[in-house]
């Protein structure tokens, strides 16, 4: 049966990873009809939602699991996957459990998580630091200290693309690294505006101010263009999620020798466990509905998980798979995961609305040097206060 799957995985590493999913699904005798829409979730999501609400749903669609699809589920537009999940014992195999929790609404499971993404990485170009004549930093503070040397060598210290979510992501990462897991949870999970206005977060803003200064001059829009600055040594580093690793891999670079990755910015080795999941709109066609179940099952198949995540540069959602082929950075991630140093991603903690407001704030903050960290923090606290 043909099943149309929409997603926004179109960059090099991503599409290679999707191909693995498609291959596995086709192997079950069905057919994966690819519906890629480029330009990140912001472009793709409205299209997906329009189609689902417009009565012309696809077979399956990617969302960042968490709260993005909540209302679609509540409106009864999504297929209940509990049957598949029970049959496949997802409760036992998916780890961390919070991933499945995000898919669960009123006790029913509505999505199949496929990977774990973590934001908390600093990617560094070894070549750039060599050129600037400084050691490759081992944590954020060293990195900040090395910035002047990089600048002198004509290298942008920190690459940040122009898209708003990149600045926001970088800030969240700095928050975990600088203020720690508890503060992070207080702010984003408990929506504690007082903490958000407090001295801990002020430190984070101080760090963000540094980042802002270091990011001056990165005239690129897309995240992978920013990553490319690092790959080519035009920039010293980039704060970006583990998906950046795919780009390094595609460029033929090797972790450790060509580039260095610092989870948790080398300060606080904690990673967030956001990720992608597939949702399955409710279809009238029996056949397709069955195929959906098959796809859901395939997505969590150990072999698929390994193949997909290796290409994607993310971590599998099952703890029981063998990742011998994983590279340095991925192994670091797995270690942290195993230690349980995990937090939930902001996607899961905040509504898209609050996320967007945050994005507006941080993209402005990063682009506008005249905005003081204090002002920014005030606005940040306000957003947290009204967040849901």
């Amino acid at each position, binding site marked *: 049966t043909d099943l149309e799957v929409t997603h926004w995985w179109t960059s090099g590493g991503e599409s290679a990873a*999707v*191909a693995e999913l498609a291959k596995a699904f086709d192997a079950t005798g069905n057919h994966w009809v690819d519906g890629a829409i480029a330009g990140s979730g912001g472009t793709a999501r409205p299209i997906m939602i329009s189609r689902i609400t417009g009565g012309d749903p696809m077979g399956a669609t990617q969302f960042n699991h968490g709260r993005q699809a909540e209302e679609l589920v509540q409106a009864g537009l999504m297929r209940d996957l509990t049957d598949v999940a029970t049959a496949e014992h997802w409760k036992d195999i998916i780890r961390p459990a919070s991933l499945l929790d995000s898919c669960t609404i009123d006790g029913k499971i509505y999505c199949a998580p496929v990977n774990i993404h973590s934001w908390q990485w600093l990617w560094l170009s070894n070549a750039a630091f060599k050129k600037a004549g400084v050691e490759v930093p081992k944590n954020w503070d060293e990195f900040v200290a090395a910035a002047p040397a990089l600048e002198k060598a004509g290298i942008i210290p920190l690459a940040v693309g122009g898209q708003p979510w990149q600045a926001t992501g970088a800030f969240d990462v700095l928050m975990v690294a600088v203020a720690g897991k508890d503060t992070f949870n207080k702010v984003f999970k408990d929506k504690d505006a007082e903490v958000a206005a407090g001295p801990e977060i002020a430190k984070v803003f101080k760090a963000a101010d540094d980042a802002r200064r270091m990011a001056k001059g990165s005239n690129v829009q897309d995240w992978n263009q920013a990553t490319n600055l690092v790959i080519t040594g035009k920039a010293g580093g980039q704060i970006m999620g583990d998906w950046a690793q795919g780009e390094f891999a595609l460029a033929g670079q090797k972790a450790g020798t060509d580039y260095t990755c610092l989870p948790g910015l080398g300060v606080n080795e904690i990673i967030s466990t956001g990720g992608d999941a597939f949702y399955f709109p409710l279809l009238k066609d029996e056949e397709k509905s069955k195929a959906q179940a098959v796809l859901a099952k395939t997505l969590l198949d150990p072999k698929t998980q390994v193949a997909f995540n290796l290409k994607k540069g993310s971590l599998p959602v099952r703890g029981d798979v063998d990742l011998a082929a994983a590279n340095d950075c991925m192994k670091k991630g797995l270690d942290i995961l195993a230690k349980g140093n995990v937090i939930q991603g902001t996607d899961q903690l905040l509504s898209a609305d609050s996320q967007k407001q945050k994005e507006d704030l941080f993209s402005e903050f990063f682009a506008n040097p005249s905005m003081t960290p204090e002002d920014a923090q005030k606005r940040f606290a306000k957003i947290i206060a009204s967040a849901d």
Partner: protein
Amino acid sequence: MADVGTLNTTVAGIDAVAPRLGEGPSGAKPRPALSSRNIMLYGTLTIAALYYLLPLYVMVVTSLKGMPEIRLGNIFSPPMEITFEPWVKAWAEACTGLNCDGLSRGFWNSVRITVPSVIISIAIASVNGYALANWRFKGSELFFSILIIGAFIPYQVMIYPIVIILREIGIYGTLTGLVIVHSIFGMPILTLLFRNYFVSLPEELFKAARVDGAGFWQIFLKIMLPMSLPIFVVAMILQVTGIWNDFLFGVVFTRPDTYPMTVQLNNIVNSVQGVKEYNVNMAATILTGLVPLIVYFVSGRLFVRGIAAGAVKG
């Protein structure tokens, strides 16, 4: 002005001495080809033309370069080595997700979307304009005013209501639905142009046809249409351009196998493997713009004539 008058007579006295042909100015006033007026005129036009041509030049030149050459940095320098590789790639090989057939697939989808959309939207708007110009009825001007105000409503605002309406009619996601959407959003400006054009045609022609016994449709088809080529060309150009270049509706109201070329273009341009392949992007960009461009070059002269007729009357 009496003083000027006397001045003239004195001048006349001087002139009268020998005002015979061949002395004094005679024939056409000499106008050197390089008069300061011409230099100004053609100079300004040429500079303006350069500004308009610059991006096209950059696009073409870049699309003919290889990536190594592009990295050298000067986007204005002509290609040292012309390669058509980017064009081939943009047309047939570039990947979006798993589909690696470039723009070619989107091209035919675009054609399938554009042709009926252009025809139907123009058909509807021309009939509207005709009815508004020649068959006014109570309220027709009100609807027209609403339509004109509708021209100012951002498309995004209307997506939700339209999705709901199309869903209720049950044509969401079909070509019919998309054609309707294009007709709706083309209607305000096109109706304005058609109405103005038909108003500018002599009213007596319309009356004569009515006396001759022709009805609403006969007058439209046999009398008005044959006289309206210019405005149809204008409408066609506007609609071909608008619909061919449309991204938002194309992506919201179609499915992957019927995505128009612009969606494909977006996918190619926005999904990059590390380095952006500028040459492929530029080739893809030119390829996407090619159809409207050809329509322009073929019908440019009629365009101006038609615009004239469609605009002159408010």
